[in-house]
């Protein structure tokens, strides 16, 4: 494959990861959030496989397999189970409405392009075109967390943010050293498992997972 074609494919893959993230901001239902997160992770796996094949980095196949197993299969399955358990869908009233959040996502993408300019300039890798997009995914994940009322949607936002960071690592350096990659993966997984336990507890204690109701503690 020619470097130019590979570079374009990377940009395309990263754009798809970003678009699936922004699509979450577009929609109102938790079930759809989870589906889009799974799709995003799937596109991400394809990007990793592409980079692994092009750069000949055997470690990345392992990373791709882990992302597929956990972020495409296992975590969405757990999220769907939690969603069924908590029942109500309260994303019909997010803090920020759809046009505003999509416009914000656009603005954040521009900011991502602006701040990553020095990174793209010095990078010699054909994957560099996707770097600003990866940072935009991080920002979109943050936006999901702060603009949604449901604890479950906030978890999805965190996972999207995590995907953005992992994508950044793949595109900027073909992945961080394996020991850090594995440790980071384990942390995300454990963090996610702890968070979903708290969703159950919040549901039991407050009868809702609307974080607006978690406001007993002030200053």
């Amino acid at each position, binding site marked *: 494959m020619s470097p130019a074609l590979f570079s374009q494919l990377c940009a395309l893959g990263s754009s798809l990861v970003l678009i699936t993230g922004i699509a979450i901001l577009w929609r109102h239902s938790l079930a759809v959030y989870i589906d889009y997160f799974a799709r995003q992770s799937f596109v991400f796996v394809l990007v990793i496989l592409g980079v692994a094949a092009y750069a000949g980095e055997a470690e990345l196949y392992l990373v791709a397999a882990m992302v597929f197993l956990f972020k495409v299969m296992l975590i969405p399955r757990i999220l769907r189970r939690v969603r069924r358990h908590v029942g109500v869908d309260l994303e019909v009233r997010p803090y920020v409405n759809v046009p505003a959040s999509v416009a914000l996502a656009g603005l954040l993408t521009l900011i991502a392009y602006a701040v990553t300019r020095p*990174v793209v300039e*010095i990078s010699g890798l054909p994957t560099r075109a996707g770097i600003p997009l990866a940072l935009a995914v991080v920002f979109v994940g943050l936006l999901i967390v702060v603009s949604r009322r449901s604890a479950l949607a906030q978890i999805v936002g965190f996972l999207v943010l995590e995907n953005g960071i992992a994508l950044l*690592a793949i595109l900027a*350096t073909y992945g961080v050293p394996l*020991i*850090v990659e594995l440790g980071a993966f384990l942390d995300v997984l454990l963090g996610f498992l702890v968070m979903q336990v*708290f969703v159950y507890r919040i549901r039991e204690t407050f009868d809702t997972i609307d974080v607006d109701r978690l406001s007993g*503690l002030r200053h």
Partner: protein
Amino acid sequence: MLLVALLLLPLAAAVPALVAPRYHPSIAATSAAASGAAFLAALGLARANLRGGVPSIGPEEFLRADGLSAVLALVVSGVACVSLWFGAGYLERVRDHGGLDDARLRRFYVLTNLFVATMLLAVTANNVGVMWVAVEGTTIATAFLIGLEHSKAALEASWKYILIGSIGIALAFVGTVLGYFDFVQRVGEAPHALHWTVLARASPGLNGDVLRLAFVFILVGYGTKAGLAPMHTWLPDAHSEAPAPISAMMSGSLLVVALYAVARWKVVVDAGVGPGYAGRMLILFGLASLVLAAVLLIRQSSYKRMLAYSSVEHIGLMCLGLGLGPLGTLAALLHMIGHAASKSLAFLASGNLLEAYGSPRIASVRGVLRVLPWTGALFLVAALALLGLPPFGLFVSEVMLVRAGFLAGRPWLMGAVLALLVAIFLSFLGHLHRMLFGIPPADVRPGERRPFGLLPLGFNVAVLLALGLVVPEPLLRLLRLAAGVLRP
């Protein structure tokens, strides 16, 4: 060897708690003993450094304890030892009052030992990626500890903590990846490129623009975990809702472990972009934290939240110190030890207040010195130390900090800092006066519950006095070594 012992001791102490069929007092004793032994191991590391060596183990110094790591290891294990020793009796009394059951008590010791182990790994890992993994590990280990006494408020605090903490740490990973990227672009893929020693050696040749961007993510990310304003929002909730021994460890050591991560990166950034940039950012966030603490301390109605905001203040002071050159750095390190001793003392004593008065509200606590003479005296000592009064350690470090500021040619900044410190002093003292004196509520039974349980806290008082009167010569040399590590 010492390094391995340091990390394995708390891990080993988690095992009996994990496999025991039910809680037994020996589990608590093992945990306290393990962190005591870890403290001895940390002392050993400090001694090795004083003799001119830097203990390390593993390929390309995978674990490494220079002067800075040794100081942090002493703080982490020292606070853990006192907290667990005091906590053993305290938590059993909480259980006897029905606040906890045996299953949760057992879980407390599993998670607390893991918490201590992850903090110790964070300060001894040479690989900044592993350091990151360990700091994130502390979030996971402590998330369930905050809500140990299942209450609505504790649940709310835990949720904010895990969500905000995880996101903050994730942003720090962006910074780590950018730093690694910069290294790989300049030097090429090296097997140990993420090792701090390798990064620091290569840093003068790195790209300044990328390093600046990386440091923004590092500071915001780890700063969230360190409780710097404006990313502090989770801190007052988590530190006030957690059980006393966990509050003590989170305030006394976890915050500075996160700040330690920032300081490690500051060395790399300073060498790459020249001194000043990272320092200015640290001063900015430090000052913001001081302002926030000064404003919010006035209207605190809960004493544990009051202590939590005081942690924001002191982390802010340490940040300022790190931004004010070598003398400021030395002051920040001294301040870190003094703060660890006084804040853990205050939080542990506040556990006794909560037990005796049954309320976290300042308005409900009157006449502490009459009801709990020993606890009250210890709380008073901790509070006076936190206010920066002589003869306690924080007085010395604050004077040193202000001097560093004037020497660095920043009289206006120091004027602002002094004004904020006075404001904090007045509001804190007002709350303190209302709590310690006055007539106790009629339904509060006077008398210490278990005066011997207070014995471990004597260690904190001794440390505060030693730092305030004459800083012991070996400690001063160790702190100079640690400050030397942070010099670009």
